[in-house]
């Protein structure tokens, strides 16, 4: 049924699309006599949404595809829109009763229950102060409700989430850079690995927290990361090479 849809989507892979571009689903006049034959549905990532019987592009960017049938728009933006299950770096802005308010860079502050930490009980409250950084995951994120964060996974383990930060530096980069940094085969990451021992916490909301063994090294890495947004790959490699020569 959706084969026409798939082929029209596949034709556009790698092309630049703009908001308002659309793909039309095939009409529903085909009736399946056997109910168990379900048509394959495309998985549409960010930037594509259904509107009536059309698939509409809602972000400008390049159409990407992952087999078997995942499509999404690769776009560059700075404004973070919370999405469920994404991990972000938040700044605790206030404590009120049972919940912390956390700034994640979205349109609204997210709420984080004090019980959503590893090992937290009603008696045993986690030690979280206003101004602390938390690495947390969204459990509720939609356009109608206040986003909600947790610092534990489904089995109650922290798994790297929770309060962190101390001796590090927080910086803001574009969302595209974050994705480039976390991609399975990332050039930036392999370049960074060459430099010196360091630690990164990368939030999908464009915040990166850096720590290295000295303040100087921390600053070098943070400057490099921030410039990566505007550098081309060869320029970046040049920068890294220069640093390696000078620093080591």
């Amino acid at each position: 049924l959706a084969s026409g849809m798939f082929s029209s989507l596949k034709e556009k892979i790698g092309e630049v699309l703009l908001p308002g571009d659309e793909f039309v689903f095939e009409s529903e006049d085909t009736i399946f006599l056997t109910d168990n034959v379900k048509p394959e549905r495309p998985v549409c990532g960010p930037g594509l949404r259904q509107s009536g019987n059309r698939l509409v592009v809602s972000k400008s960017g390049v159409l990407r595809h992952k087999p078997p049938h995942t499509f999404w728009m690769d776009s560059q933006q700075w404004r973070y829109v919370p999405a469920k299950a994404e991990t972000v770096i938040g700044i605790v802005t206030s404590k009120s009763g049972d919940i912390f308010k956390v700034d994640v860079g979205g349109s609204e502050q997210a709420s984080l229950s004090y019980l959503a930490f590893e090992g937290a009980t009603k008696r045993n409250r986690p030690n979280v102060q206003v101004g602390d950084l938390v690495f947390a995951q969204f459990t509720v994120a939609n356009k109608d409700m206040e986003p909600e964060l947790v610092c534990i996974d489904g089995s109650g383990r922290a798994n790297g989430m929770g309060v962190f930060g101390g001796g590090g530096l927080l910086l803001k980069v574009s969302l595209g850079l974050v994705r480039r940094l976390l991609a399975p085969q990332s050039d930036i990451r392999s370049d960074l690995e060459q430099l010196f021992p360091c630690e990164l916490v990368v939030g999908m909301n464009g915040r990166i927290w850096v720590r290295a063994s000295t303040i100087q090294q921390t600053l070098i890495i943070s400057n490099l990361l921030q410039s990566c947004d505007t550098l081309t790959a060869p320029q970046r490699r040049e920068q890294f090479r220069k640093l390696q020569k000078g620093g080591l």
Partner: protein
Amino acid sequence: MAEDSFKLSKNLLRMKFMQRGLDAETKKQLDEDEKRIISDEHWHLDLPELKSKENRIVEEKSFGPCEELLFGRLSFRGFNPEVEKLMALMNPKDEVEEDVSQMQTDVTDEEMALRYESLVGTMKKKFAKKRERRGMDEDDQNLLESNTKRVFLKPRD
């Protein structure tokens, strides 16, 4: 006769003890009245019915699954060993397949057979009846205690 001349009030007719004597028609009418009262008391939105449209796509709001992004905690060159352990845990690589093949060769069939060979005796003992089991035990132990008859020893005072 009486029905023609006067009418009982509706509220009276609705009472439980009056239900028996009512004929089908009045009963039906009363029910309808009651239904209308109930539905009048319930609010409803005077809107055209929302068409529940079929979802033709599976929506995925996050980039994570699309681009197979890694977990957001990274440590390079052993700066934070804990995080490096976490990285290995959260970002599974193709090593899983290797593990499977290793698991297959971990215990060979022969080893397994050897192991079960020794198990047969113990399992047999388990399923044997009590009397038989005693016999088995004696088989094992009769070499040690041969014909030492147990006698009651009188305690000394």
